[in-house]
């Protein structure tokens, strides 16, 4: 007897529609951004998880263009803040402005800052002072800002995409670990291949303008964000994410030698949360209704690389966080059925 599953009333966005919209977004972005498919996928995953993303790469690789394109494709409100050392918190969250009406009566009006947008591009976030950084990071965490005693929620979905330039570190203020932890994923923006670079040059030096299609609106994206969290996860998959996080702690027995040598502090629990959430979005983007071990392992590096606090030995030996996460993945390994002879 074949069991006929009874599908409950579909939400505004079904899983199938979810995958279609995501594919359309990627396709439209691909019309502007040459290559960088992994980067596009990472940003898309963060948007669908309503998680913030930190992009690190040298200038000129299309980070800003990617986010602008994304905002156009999904019809989300976009704002950009260029972080500089003289940037003040009010320049981000907004401030009270004294206004005088026609009758001469003066009142304070809240002038919303650029953070009041669905997509906020915090360009070169490490160039602002910690005070300014913390203003944005508080908004990232609370998804609300408090000015003059009034708390004002930020629009949903709210997604901060911050960029960092790994060069020109002079006069920068590296983000503290606690603030880095608030980014769902950290993506490295690679230099394009020669072929991709040829295409980039062709597109950017010609007069042809790309007319992007808007494939989703705010309600659709909000529904997709909610749907992402509904994806079921098997217990052993969840456990594997936790095992990976635990293995990043140098004092834990499952930690590989590299972690013990180069890591001062391992990932916070947010690392496991980020992996599971990102894996859910990745599964849906892949057209699957459940999270797999491979999904977890695929997002482990972007979810954990910025959550490891490395010691000076790592810098001295040229060991990167990505190397250490790879060591963790090797050490922990994909779980088997737990039975000799079983696959």
């Amino acid at each position, binding site marked *: 007897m074949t069991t006929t599953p009874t599908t409950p009333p579909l939400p505004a966005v079904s899983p199938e529609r979810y995958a279609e919209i995501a594919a359309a977004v990627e396709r439209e972005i691909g019309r502007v951004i040459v290559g960088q498919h992994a980067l596009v996928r990472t940003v898309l995953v963060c948007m669908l998880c309503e998680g913030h993303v930190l992009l690190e790469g040298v200038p000129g690789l299309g980070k800003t263009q990617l986010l602008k394109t994304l905002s156009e494709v999904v019809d989300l409100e976009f704002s950009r803040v260029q972080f500089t050392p003289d940037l003040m918190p009010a320049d981000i969250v907004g401030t009270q402005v004294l206004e005088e009406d026609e009758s001469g009566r003066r009142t304070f009006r809240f002038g919303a800052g650029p953070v009041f947008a669905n997509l906020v591009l915090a360009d070169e976030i490490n160039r602002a002072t910690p005070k300014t950084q913390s203003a944005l990071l508080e908004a990232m965490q609370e998804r609300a800002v408090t000015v003059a005693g009034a708390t004002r929620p930020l629009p949903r979905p709210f997604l901060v995409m911050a960029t960092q330039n790994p060069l020109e570190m002079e006069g920068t203020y590296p983000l503290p670990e606690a603030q880095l932890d608030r980014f769902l994923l950290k993506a490295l923006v690679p230099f394009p291949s020669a072929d991709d670079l040829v295409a980039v040059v062709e597109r950017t030096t010609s007069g042809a303008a790309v007319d992007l299609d808007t494939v989703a609106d705010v309600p659709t994206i909000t529904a997709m964000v909610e749907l992402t969290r509904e994806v079921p996860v*098997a217990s052993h998959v969840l456990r594997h994410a936790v095992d990976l996080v635990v293995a990043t702690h140098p004092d834990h027995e499952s930690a590989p030698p590299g972690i013990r040598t180069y890591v001062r502090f391992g990932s916070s629990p947010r690392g496991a949360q980020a992996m599971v959430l990102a894996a859910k979005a990745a599964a849906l983007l892949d057209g699957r209704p*459940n999270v797999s071990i491979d999904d977890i392992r695929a997002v482990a590096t972007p979810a954990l690389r910025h959550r490891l606090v490395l010691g000076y030995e790592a810098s001295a030996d040229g060991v990167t966080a990505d190397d250490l996460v790879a060591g963790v993945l090797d050490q*922990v390994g994909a779980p088997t059925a737990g039975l000799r002879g079983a696959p």
Partner: protein
Amino acid sequence: MTPTEAPAAAPRRSAEPLPGAGDSELLSPEAIGLLRGVGRRLRLAWGFAWVQLLAPVVVVTALALVIIGRVRPWGWTEPVAIAVTVAGVVAVAIGALTLRIPLGLSARATDRGLATRDAFATALELDDHDRDGPFGSRVRARADALAEDRSPGEAVAVRAAWGPWAVAAVAALAAVTLGLVANPQDQIREQQAAEQALVAEEAEALREAAEELRADPAATAADVALAERLEELAVGLDEAQSLDEAEALLAEAEAELRAAVEPDLLAQKAAAQGLDKGLASAPLPATEGGDAAAQLEQAAASLDQRSAAEKEELATRLESLAETQAAGNPEAADALDAAAAALRSGDDAAAAASMTTAAGAQRSSSASAAAQESRQRASGGVGEARQRVAKGPGSPGSGEGRGEGEGEGEGEGEGEGDGDGDGAGSGQGKGQGQGQGQGEGEGGGQGQGGGAQGQVGGANGSTGSGQGGQGTPDGTGTNDAPAVEQDPTVFDPGVATDGETLDAGGTPNGGDSTEVGKGQGTSTAGGSRVPVSGALPRYEEKATRALDQAKVPPSVRSLVDDYFRRLAQR
């Protein structure tokens, strides 16, 4: 977040146990059938994996045991090798049959084997929220779709690793080959088994002897103690690890039992039995029969009814009896003499008391002799067992032995003559002889062999001859050619060829007295030589048995008794 960011090949590791999957009804029968088939397949794969892991270890262990069995005479190595192999197979089989494989485990194995990205495991773990959500039906439908046209064999492949199997095959072949080739240790093992059987046989014989002692209705406390000692000795033999140890135990027991036998046992026994049998054949006057003690007591009780002549006759008889008891039972002899004297002096009361004392001494002597005889028999039995153990179970030998024997004997006789006017007389004689013999043998075979001892009974006028037994290459062979022994004669004046003539001591009473001679015989060279101390116990035992015959007169017993006593004193 691309596949390239994940490690290409991550090692597997064991995961935590899965929760029980009790929601199998949510999946299609085909999917459930696939998972159950995977469970059976997992059982097979588990057993195969363990066999593959253990086979080299078990077979190499068995091979090592077989090799050890070829260099050491241990009989347990090959059976243990077989047992280890069988135990390994049985353990894996039992483990595979009793292995608990929940459906969740099958689901995870299926997911990994079919690369279904955890579809089955997730489908089995859907909770109520998931089932009612947008993904419940889709997860189940996906699992059902993935189960179509898939077989458990695809999910769980049973793959053989050639390395372990090659090692196991080579080791097994070597073990079987060595097991089939003749093992040089087998002969040693057989020898050890024969030795153990011999020791066990001796232990059993000791137990039977002890049982007989206990079963005897007339068994005394000494008999019971002796039985316990024999049983203790049997236990010691059971626990003995070698023939030497068993022999030492037997020698110790033999010495212990022999020490408990008084040197004049034969005299005591001869006296006691002689008195009983003498009075049985010629009861005391006016008694109703019975043993000697009873007759003495009856006579003591009826003294007041006897006439003077009868008392004189009784006194004479008592004196005669006293003489026969002088050697073996001095207490009885003294009492009998005292009784005779009292009778002659008319002191009936003293005579009665002395006769009662004599009766008690007779009973005591009989009991003592019986007890000592038991010990002596036991000692003899233990000694024989010791000799058998010392000789070992025997093994084929090819040596040759040669022995020479020489005997010497001394004879000594005493005679009593009692004659009457008709010229008829009778005499008693007592002789003593000693013989010595030694045997030496040399074995051939591999050039050296231990010749067995030759034994010869040297006696007065007798000749001893001995023949060395076959030696064995290792000197422990069976002496299957026992020494030829010429029966010794206790005393035979007629063959004394060069002895001095002795007065038999008899007092002629109008008749012809008999003279018995005392000869210093010359021995004839025999085939072997043994020290007299080695032959004496056996001779003594035989003589003791001979004394048990009713036809042997008491005087002869005293003669034999003196003979061995003197030998022992020398």
